[in-house]
């Protein structure tokens, strides 16, 4: 793990938490990190997430943020910047450095009526918490036959393109998409990040919220008045006629770049932003495939037994007579994520996506 927790900080958190809790402070509607007023603003995804978290904290005093270094530091990606200042150490909690402990105590807090939002510092650090996520969090509502809800959100910065060390660039979403009882979403734009984090927190089910960390800093518009789409809806983000390409998170902007390039060469690509990995909203995708007859699924994750594999199988079952070609997967290789100097060779890029498109068109 990259950062250590100062023991004295943990003690002071406890002290201020107790003091704050007894003061009976309200949710903090005047917090500076809240964006007030409506309209469309331009901001990076990290800021949109920060504003979305602030809005959720202000809307419901049962919402708590928990994680490593999320307090004064604002998280290693600054997504929680100033939130502890604005909402207090009893709402934005720096935890001991223990991922299973974070998830396990979040489960207990949810049993008590809280809505914890846990930050896992990096994708590859989620595995110490894997057992609590898959054997406890995912199953507790069923084990209680519906009497217990588990409104826990787990934020996971994920994916490559940032040149980082081992365990800091992975895409582990398939493990969780395979687990019944969990919901998984991944925004591709600042607008979706702002709204989807609030919708995930409002969900009474556990939601794994995968944040494409290579997209934290590019700016984009955020409509502060309306989300425009349900949490688990997929969306056609570029119209085309020859091939459908689908992806999620950071891959979506790569697909749009590929589509722009292909257009210059005379190929019309339709792009679908998956947005939700569990459940997957297949209708827009199937509707698209029925028109184009071809599908390329792109993802940073290793291709074997992946979300892309599931999409390929389902589309083959449900749109078999519309397909002119087998569904093509463009994925990371089935190797551990390589040292950063090789990530360009490992991760699908525009050329690899267009190679997949060419293969789909070759049938």
């Amino acid at each position, binding site marked *: 793990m990259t950062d250590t927790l100062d023991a004295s900080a943990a003690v002071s958190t406890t002290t201020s938490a107790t003091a704050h809790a007894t003061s009976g402070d309200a949710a903090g509607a005047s917090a500076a990190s809240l964006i007030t007023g409506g309209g469309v603003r331009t901001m990076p995804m990290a800021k949109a997430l920060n504003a979305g978290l602030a809005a959720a904290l202000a809307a419901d005093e049962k919402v708590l943020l928990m994680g490593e270094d999320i307090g004064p530091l604002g998280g290693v990606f600054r997504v929680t910047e100033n939130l502890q200042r604005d909402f207090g150490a009893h709402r934005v909690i720096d935890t001991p450095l223990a991922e299973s402990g974070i998830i396990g105590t979040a489960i207990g807090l*949810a049993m008590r009526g809280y809505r914890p939002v846990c930050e896992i510092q990096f994708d590859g650090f989620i595995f110490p918490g894997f057992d609590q996520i898959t054997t406890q969090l995912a199953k507790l509502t069923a*084990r209680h036959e519906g009497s217990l809800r588990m409104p826990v959100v787990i934020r996971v910065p994920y994916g490559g393109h940032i040149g980082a060390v081992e365990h800091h660039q992975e895409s582990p979403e398939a493990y969780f998409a395979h687990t019944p009882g969990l919901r998984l979403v991944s925004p591709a734009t600042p607008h979706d990040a702002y709204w989807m984090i609030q919708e995930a927190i409002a969900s009474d089910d556990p939601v794994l919220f995968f944040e494409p960390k290579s997209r934290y800093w590019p700016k984009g518009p955020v409509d502060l008045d309306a989300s425009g789409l349900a949490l688990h809806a997929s969306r056609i983000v570029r119209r085309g006629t020859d091939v459908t390409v689908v992806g999620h998170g950071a891959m979506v902007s790569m697909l749009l770049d590929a589509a722009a390039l292909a257009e210059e060469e005379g190929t019309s690509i339709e792009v679908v932003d998956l947005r939700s990995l569990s459940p997957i909203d297949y209708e827009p995708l199937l509707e698209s495939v029925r028109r184009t007859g071809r599908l390329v699924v792109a993802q940073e994750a290793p291709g074997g037994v992946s979300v892309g594999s599931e999409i390929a199988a389902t589309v083959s079952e449900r749109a078999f007579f519309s397909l002119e070609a087998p569904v093509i997967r463009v994925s990371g290789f089935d190797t551990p994520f390589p040292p950063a100097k090789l990530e360009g060779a490992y991760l699908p890029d525009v050329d690899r996506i267009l190679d997949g498109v060419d293969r789909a068109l070759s049938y």
Partner: protein
Amino acid sequence: MSHTAETLQLLAPDGRLVDSERAERYRPVVDGLDESLLQSFHRTMTVIRAFDIEAGNLQRQGQLALWIPSLGQEAAQVGSGYAARPQDHIFPAYREHAVGHIRGLDVVQIIAMLRGLSHGGWVPEEVGNFHLYTLVIGSQTLHATGYAMGVQFDGLVGTGDETRDTAVMVYFGDGATSQGDVNEAFVFAQSYATPQVFFLQNNHWAISVPVSVQSRTPLFHRPAGFGIPSVQIDGNDVLASYAVTLESLDAARSGEGPRFIEALTYRMGAHTTSDDPTKYRADDEVESWRRRDPIARFETYLRGRGASDQFFAEVAAEAADFAADARRRTLALEPPTAESMFAHVYSEQHPVMDTQREWLRSYEAAFGGDA
């Protein structure tokens, strides 16, 4: 790894109160116990032992997939169980049948789990805040710690209102102390000063592995390293279990932070009905613990205080009735419907559940609707 001079005992195996400086401190609690509560200790231990034996019989007769015996651990469970207040929350492992019974759980719901009809399914708030059993060893300690953090955030610690101040007690075993989650629970508990009691039943065996493989030092020495006060008690002494748990829960409720109790006891039977303890432990060890039987010890104590033969006969009859009733109701349990698989995977609507439920419905209908 067993009783030493550090082990707190209030009631000796011969049924007499221990006269020691440490025991003296708890004498006001023991002297303050009224006769009806003392009788309840005996009644609950006896009733649960009869139920436990009957459940084992049901397993042997093919009525349960598995049973998890609590034989020999009644005093640790009954003493601690009676020490909790109604508003406290209990996170059991999976052998705390007596605690569940004390809190108001119908123990046939435990049987339903082991008959393959549910994964628990009771509503903790309807059964004295007794939470579901957790089968993955030690996972529940973190849930208890998180719950206790929530109690603290709710401001229900140290107010001085004894009907509202709330503590959380979590049960786990000697094997669980090796799990990362249990140690992470200690870390979080001390960091946030949770209102919580860690109740370790050291029954000396994690299935076939002796406690000496889990630890070379007495387990109650470990919490000191986490900054959590701890005490080791004779877990077959119901008075020690009651008095020390009472004191620890009071401390937790009043804002003094977490406490740790190691109750030395012994699993007289198998880990579950699936194993054969004669393969891994010696008869003389089992025999030595039989001589420390918690119920026999407490019966001697009660007789010394004047309890009558009639009282013990009535309790024995009540226990037999309880076990027979559990058997009757076990055999009458209805299986769940296949569609219930899909009902509560999510709290909110989910298209995959809808699709698969519908598919199963039409698949079964294809066989005439009675598959």
